[in-house]
């Protein structure tokens, strides 16, 4: 959404954030109220809708695909996730046609980088490797339905939500003719060799406690901000996309600096930055990531299941 504000309004805003007060009353490191809902689409394997301040609205959907690959050509297992961000024209008429493609590709590439070590980040992701030559491919598609600032942050939360909602079927792999394998869906076990006949397919879920978040940290005046509103985005000098992931080896006692890994840093838009500023901005990113991890962990544990599609009707 394009916002046009006058120079005086910009000045007011910049002076405000330099004193840690933003136009909507937040401090620089505060996020707008956010709503995260999982299981909003029945046609996907996992889905999540995230709203930031009720104006930024993104929808993530995951489709699984059984993929055959050449095990001789690929010795090292490739990470099985692919990301695609689409800016729907619904968000703004400037995205009509091919208008949103460039921004979408940029964001997809950033997520691809942030999740490039996904096999280490998600401990049980290697289970998607079914047999030599067969694996589950996880297509994560994000649709931006409304746009009012900090889309990357909302997208990364939606990805985490959708990944935690994702249910992958358990399969039986048995050798077949000609060195191939046959893959059959499994019913869940209820103790020993007895299988539950009521449930059609057993499912398993990914462990998402240390999935990376992509945060936008912006420089306005001398202050660093997270979660900018559209008005604030007009005044940005320079913006960094910072991927932060929880370190799996870290213990609660270890200090903050070691607790988080930076998985991706990208400058978005133009502008010049000093070395010290980059350091400050990554520190702010890790600080806010800590709070976000706590909040999202709580939400994922306490969320109640609702009927798919219900979230749009409220």
């Amino acid at each position, binding site marked *: 959404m394009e916002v046009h504000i006058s120079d005086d309004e910009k000045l007011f805003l910049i002076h405000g954030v330099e004193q840690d007060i933003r136009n909507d009353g937040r401090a620089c490191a505060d996020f707008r109220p956010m709503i995260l809902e999982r299981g909003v689409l029945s046609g996907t394997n996992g889905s999540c809708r995230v709203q930031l301040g009720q104006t930024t609205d993104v929808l993530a959907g995951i489709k699984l695909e059984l993929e055959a690959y050449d095990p001789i050509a690929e010795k090292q297992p490739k990470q099985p996730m692919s990301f695609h961000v689409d800016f729907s024209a619904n968000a703004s008429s400037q995205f009509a046609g091919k208008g949103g493609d460039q921004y979408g590709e940029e964001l997809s590439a950033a997520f691809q980088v942030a999740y490039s070590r996904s096999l280490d980040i998600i401990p049980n992701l290697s289970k998607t490797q079914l047999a030599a030559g067969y694996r589950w491919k996880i297509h994560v*598609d994000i649709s931006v339905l409304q746009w009012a600032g900090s889309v990357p942050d909302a997208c990364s939360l939606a990805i985490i939500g959708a990944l935690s909602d994702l249910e992958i079927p358990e399969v039986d792999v048995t050798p077949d003719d000609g060195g191939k394998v*046959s893959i059959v869906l499994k019913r869940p076990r209820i103790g020993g060799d007895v299988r539950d006949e009521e449930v059609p397919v057993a499912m398993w879920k990914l462990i998402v406690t240390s999935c990376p978040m992509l945060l936008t940290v912006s420089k306005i005046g001398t202050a660093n901000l997270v979660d900018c509103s559209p008005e604030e985005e007009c005044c940005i000098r320079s913006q960094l996309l910072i991927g932060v992931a929880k370190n799996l080896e870290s213990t609660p006692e270890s200090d903050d600096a070691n607790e988080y890994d930076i998985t991706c840093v990208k400058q978005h838009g133009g502008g010049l930055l000093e070395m010290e500023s980059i350091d400050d901005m990554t520190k702010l990113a890790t600080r806010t990531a800590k709070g976000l991890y706590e909040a999202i962990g709580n939400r994922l544990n306490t969320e109640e299941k609702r009927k798919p599609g219900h979230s749009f009707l409220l």
Partner: protein
Amino acid sequence: MNSIQNIQQVLNLQIRLFIPRFQLREFLTVYNTLSERCFNACARDYTTSTLTKDEGSCVSQCIDKQMLVNRRFMLVFAEQAPKALFKQGEQSPTEAIKSAKPEQTPASQTTETPTTMSIISEHGFRIDGRRPAQIRNINTRLGLNRNAEGSCYLEHGNTKVLCAVYGPYEGKASKRLEDRCAIVCQYSTTTFSGLERKNRPRGDRKSTEISRLLEKAFESVILTESFPRSQIDIFCEVIQGDGSNLAACVNATSLALADAGIPMKGIASAATCGIVDAKPIVDLTSREETDLLPRVTVSGFSSIILLLHSKFQLATICGRDEVILVELQNRLHIDHLSVVMDAAKATCADVYECLAVVAQQHLKACAPILGH
């Protein structure tokens, strides 16, 4: 093991009854190949003489699979062999039988195909439990998108559409018209909307076609002369597609236009209608749309997307309904056209009732803001 014994019994019976020597050899080859294949595929535990539970189920599945393949081959063979045996131009026995019965109507032919069975059950219900002339539940919400002038979320059962209307505003100079406003529509589907994942959300031929259809339809609904030299953007995003996508988009768009307060001749409503056994079925799901497709070659299936635009206030009294969009996919017998059109018209009237209620409720909710 049961299935192996069954096959053995059947084989024995056939051997004793009538099979000449070369056919016996054929059968034995099938039997031997079958048992060898399934043994190789399934038997893994050589420590016991009996089959374990897993192995047993594997064997029976394996045999079922092989027998199905065998049967499929036999069917294809039975169909193709006469063509190869009889010279071209000469009638094969099956064709001769078919041509001997010219009185057969398309409808009676369709009853023979097994696909028709699955669409309407013998008790007259469809797969999802609806009657042939029953529409799916419609749920809506207006004013979802705060950036747009008007917006609407609409569900037809599992088909879910978001629509946003921007404008009227001073649009691109290239699109500007001197006497009326330009309407720009874009139809796109999210990559995860269908059964299979799509690579592109828009830009393919089908979505471009639907965009143009929507544009043309709404050019005749909106009072375009009221906004000369301006542009109205209509964006439809299908977030979950389960059949009748175009109809859902039309319905969502007319509500979004109403939400934006753009003057229209009335509220447009749309419905999809197909035909099975000369009986119309309305508001098709994607399952029904795909199930019907193979029947195109058999008799002539059609899906008419017909858009009816009823007068906003006088719909029931006036009764003179105007059609603003008709689209036909696949082939249709000309006798069926009027049947399908009537069914679609009736459904449009039903859908219109629903949309009118939504619009009125929304207006009532807005009344305090408007100061009435």
